[in-house]
């Protein structure tokens, strides 16, 4: 039993920290907070309080649809900093810094 427990404990230690969910609120066409920091594997969840549909769009990258009075989310797969915007209202802008 012992070696097995040890292996299990080591596996737990070696496994990466639990992925977090980072909340971003959209209210009156503003992403808040506009700038967030996350780790690879974390999820960003947008809560849209507006009666308008929005998107979180990275030019040449991913896009999340965030319907009116609803939520949308994305799990971050790559490290790096990304600017995102709403494709329907390009004056809405956000920023995510993804660390490994």
């Amino acid at each position, binding site marked *: 039993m012992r070696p097995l427990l040890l292996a299990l404990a080591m596996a737990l230690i070696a496994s990466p920290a639990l992925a977090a969910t980072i909340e971003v609120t959209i209210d*009156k*066409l503003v992403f808040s907070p506009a700038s967030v920091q996350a780790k690879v594997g974390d999820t960003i969840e947008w809560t849209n309080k507006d*009666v*308008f*549909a929005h998107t979180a769009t990275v030019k040449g990258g991913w896009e999340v649809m965030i319907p*009116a009075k609803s939520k949308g989310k994305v799990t971050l797969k790559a490290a790096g900093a990304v600017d995102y915007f*709403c*494709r*329907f*209202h*390009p*004056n*809405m802008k956000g920023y995510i810094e993804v660390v490994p």
Partner: protein
Amino acid sequence: MFMRPTAALAALFLISAAPLAQAADKPTDPQIAHIAYTAGSIDIEAAKLAIKKSKNKEIVAFAKDMERDHEAVNKQALDLVKKLKVTPEDNDTSKALAKAAKEERGKLAKLKGADFDKAYIENEVAYHKQVNGALETLLIPSASNAELKSLLETGLKIFQGHQQHAEHVAGMLK
């Protein structure tokens, strides 16, 4: 052939810019509510025409975005006037806007294909620019009720977004 729609548009922009410039007198809240609602309805009508007429995927998608957003704004406006017990009041600015829009729709209705798409999206850019100017310089500063002012401010952000979106779509057509 290629010059004509452009010249017509340029002329129309001058004409359609006039109604809001004329409104030198400070409008009242019931008038402001009517102007804002009329401005939204005009864009919904234009969107419906584009959805019906255009075969361009980007144009149709843009028009559907306009229809959806402006219907949502106008619903909020109606809910607010009901709550405030304000009756929107027709006025010269609303009338001039509606008249200019009717003429524009008449012109757009005669165009087809790429000519229609170009004229529609260019008018969307010009129209949102015009409405944003009116919101910033006249309607928002004139609004006395705080909730109405706040709705107009959200409206301005939405319309500024639409203007940028329209400019992006117009750029893609070129």
